[in-house]
């Protein structure tokens, strides 16, 4: 099947839109706000999360500025509480959780399994509106008055004592939760029902598997967050004694419910990153993914076991010794599939023809930082060490290595990797490589000192600290300057590329995924042909050599 090529359109600015594609299919504002095209919804989400990323980043900047001086001269105690709460809430729920699934997931997932659309396009658009409404509610709650509970909303402070906009912020997160659920349901149904002919489960690209695993977690964990926030809401708003110990309530119950969502939420943030990195490493090393099946089962195991480890956040909350033992053991267990993935990425690199392109640099950065974050997680999974390290900067550094070093690096890896497909333009490679290296350097510069601070005993969430911690705090703040530059720089060269970048060919990286077999940018219906898959993914080297181009739609190959 071929598609007639209409003459090139130009916009009002006289810019040539290029070939007919999803970008030329309606250029009014309403054609975007009313779209059910998964690719356009991905762009809408990208606009939203970029805004929240820089908002959360601004709060982080304020935190790092404040911590330069042990006396905390810039902010009052209360302002500092509200600043780190804003940073946490925005970054967790309005950037990290939706980041990769709603942008690259929405854009790439249907294409990489050979589908024309997601299963429920209108629900997909609806989910974006939920995200916007929830985002605005929380945004107003945080900026006009603020919230001082920390992103964790621990009771009874959040329900009975806090004098801040807890209700509005909780309502916003509640609404946004349903946008996650809608996305998860859409992805699971899409992967079950809309795979192309011949796209069997064990031929799915690992990115699709990652989206499947993360969707399972989103669908099964987010409702628990919803009911938890609802209970906080009714206790605070209507005075119903839910968690209030004066009436027989149990604040620890809140923590169980909250972490039953919020620990799996860590895997909501990191599973998509693993999917992105698997695609990038295989392509840029020109190698089949080492141990594909183990990669799949490792992700599913992470998704399942991730539901069984929430108690490790509560080792010092008065949990029973037996519960501590079990949760500690299970937290060690979940390191196994994570380690399988790290070893398999390394195995994939072995004897590869590695291109140190920007996406690859970001992906390699992910592997290293994720490994450090994961190994320090084992320290915290061990009860005796955790009792010492709880609520210190060691914990802060640990989860930033996973979430920022891991997930954000992978987000940038995917952003650069799929940029030519999404926009139809190439980005300036040298600038991007420079940004990737700067980000890796700036990240370690910022967060490694925090491990040492934590071991030396500096607690989190305080802006006043003893003199002896100043040197490391100043180091960390200096690193944050480098990191801020590394995050802002891509904004400029990617914006430049959007307007002036060289036109991208259909498959600039010689990648094998189905999304690369269509045009850049893709047509509205994704493919000008009906994809017919005859081979396993990542056929980068059929016969002891690495030829230039081997696609997943080609004839069967014997590796």
């Amino acid at each position, binding site marked *: 099947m071929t598609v007639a090529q209409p003459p090139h359109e130009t916009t009002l600015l006289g810019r040539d839109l290029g070939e007919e594609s999803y970008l030329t299919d309606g250029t009014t504002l309403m054609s975007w706000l009313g779209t059910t095209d998964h690719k356009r919804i991905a762009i809408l989400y990208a606009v939203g999360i970029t805004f929240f990323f820089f908002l959360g980043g601004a709060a982080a900047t304020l935190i790092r500025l404040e911590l330069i001086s042990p006396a905390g001269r810039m902010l009052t105690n209360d302002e500092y509480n509200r600043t780190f709460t804003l940073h946490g809430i925005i970054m967790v729920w309005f950037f990290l959780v939706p980041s990769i699934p709603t942008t690259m997931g929405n854009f790439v997932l249907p294409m990489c399994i050979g589908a024309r659309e997601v299963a429920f396009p209108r629900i997909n658009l609806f989910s974006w509106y939920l995200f916007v409404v929830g985002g605005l509610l929380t945004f107003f709650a945080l900026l006009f008055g603020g919230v001082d509970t920390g992103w964790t909303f621990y009771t009874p402070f959040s329900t009975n004592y806090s004098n801040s906009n807890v209700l509005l912020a909780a309502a916003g997160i509640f609404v946004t939760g349903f946008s996650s659920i809608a996305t998860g349901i859409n992805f699971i149904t899409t992967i079950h*029902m*809309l795979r192309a002919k011949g796209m069997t489960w064990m031929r799915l690209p690992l990115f699709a598997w990652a989206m499947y695993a993360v969707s399972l977690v989103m669908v099964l964990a987010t409702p628990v967050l*919803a009911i938890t926030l609802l*209970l906080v809401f*009714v206790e605070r708003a*209507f005075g119903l004694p839910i968690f209030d110990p004066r009436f*027989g309530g149990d604040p620890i119950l809140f923590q169980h419910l909250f972490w039953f969502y919020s620990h799996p939420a860590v895997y909501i943030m990191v599973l998509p990153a693993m999917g992105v990195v698997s695609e990038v490493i295989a392509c840029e090393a020109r190698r089949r993914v080492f141990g594909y099946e183990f990669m799949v089962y490792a992700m599913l195991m992470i998704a399942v076991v991730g539901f069984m480890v929430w108690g490790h956040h509560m080792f010092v909350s008065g949990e029973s010794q037996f519960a501590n033992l079990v949760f500690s053991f299970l937290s060690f267990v979940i390191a196994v599939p994570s380690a399988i993935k790290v070893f398999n990425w390394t195995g994939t690199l072995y004897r590869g023809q590695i291109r140190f392109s920007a996406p690859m640099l970001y992906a390699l950065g992910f592997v290293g930082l994720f490994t450090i974050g994961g190994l320090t997680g084992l320290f915290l999974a061990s009860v005796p060490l955790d009792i010492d390290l709880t609520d210190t900067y060691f914990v802060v550094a640990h989860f930033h290595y996973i979430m920022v070093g891991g997930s954000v690096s992978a987000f940038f890896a995917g952003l650069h990797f799929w940029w030519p497909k999404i926009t139809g333009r190439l980005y300036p490679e040298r600038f991007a490589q420079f940004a990737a290296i700067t980000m890796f350097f700036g990240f370690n510069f910022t967060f490694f000192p925090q491990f040492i601070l934590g071991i030396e005993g500096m607690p989190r969430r305080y802006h006043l600290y003893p003199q002896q911690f100043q040197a490391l705090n100043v180091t960390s703040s200096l690193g944050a300057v480098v990191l801020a530059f590394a995050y802002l720089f891509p904004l400029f060269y990617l914006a430049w590329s959007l307007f002036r970048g060289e036109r991208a060919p259909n498959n600039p990286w010689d990648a094998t995924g189905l999304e690369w077999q269509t045009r850049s940018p893709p047509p509205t219906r994704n493919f000008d042909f009906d994809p017919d898959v005859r081979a396993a993914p990542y056929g980068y080297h059929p016969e002891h050599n690495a030829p230039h181009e081997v696609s997943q739609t080609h004839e069967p190959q014997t590796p």
Partner: protein
Amino acid sequence: MTQPPAILNEPWRTPERQQVAMQFGIWLFLATEALFFGGLFLFYAVSRFTDSAGFEIGAREADIWFGTANTAVLMTSSLTMAIGERATKEGLVPLARLMVMATLALGATFLVVKGFEYRSDIEKHLVPGPAFKYAIRGAAQFWAFYWTATVVHAIHLTVGLGIVSRLLFISKEDLPERWTTAIGTALYWHLVDIVWVILYPLLYLVGRP
């Protein structure tokens, strides 16, 4: 390819696939609801286990007559919804519409009875707070659960009324071809039923011989 393509939503190519996907999606949504209410029931379990004496004293105040009447009303609506769904699929449009209307009427009746029950509860000082009837630990916990759970259920039921009434806005000619919509609607309505079936013993049968 047994049905006209007019009823197909993007991106489905056959009614069979669309029906399976729609049902699959709704079941996934029902799984999320199970976890949502699961958190609420966990609160119930913890409260009842912690202060069981006070909890049961509070529970005895729940009005079993309102509760039982509403159970009968909602179970009947479940039947009418099931008949309505089958009638739609078989093309019996007048019967289907009658049953949908009966479902709406029974659902509304449930809310009205619930309203009377709420009035009686408020008059008996069963809203936790300064004027609450009991001082014993646990009683207020039961009533915190009662109000949260029944209001959340009533909100689900109200949303259900909206979804069910949507079937009445489909024209007579199109209705038989919209049977996948009817199936989805019925699945949601049965969620409302089944949550109530669990709530009924938890709320009204505790502490009674």
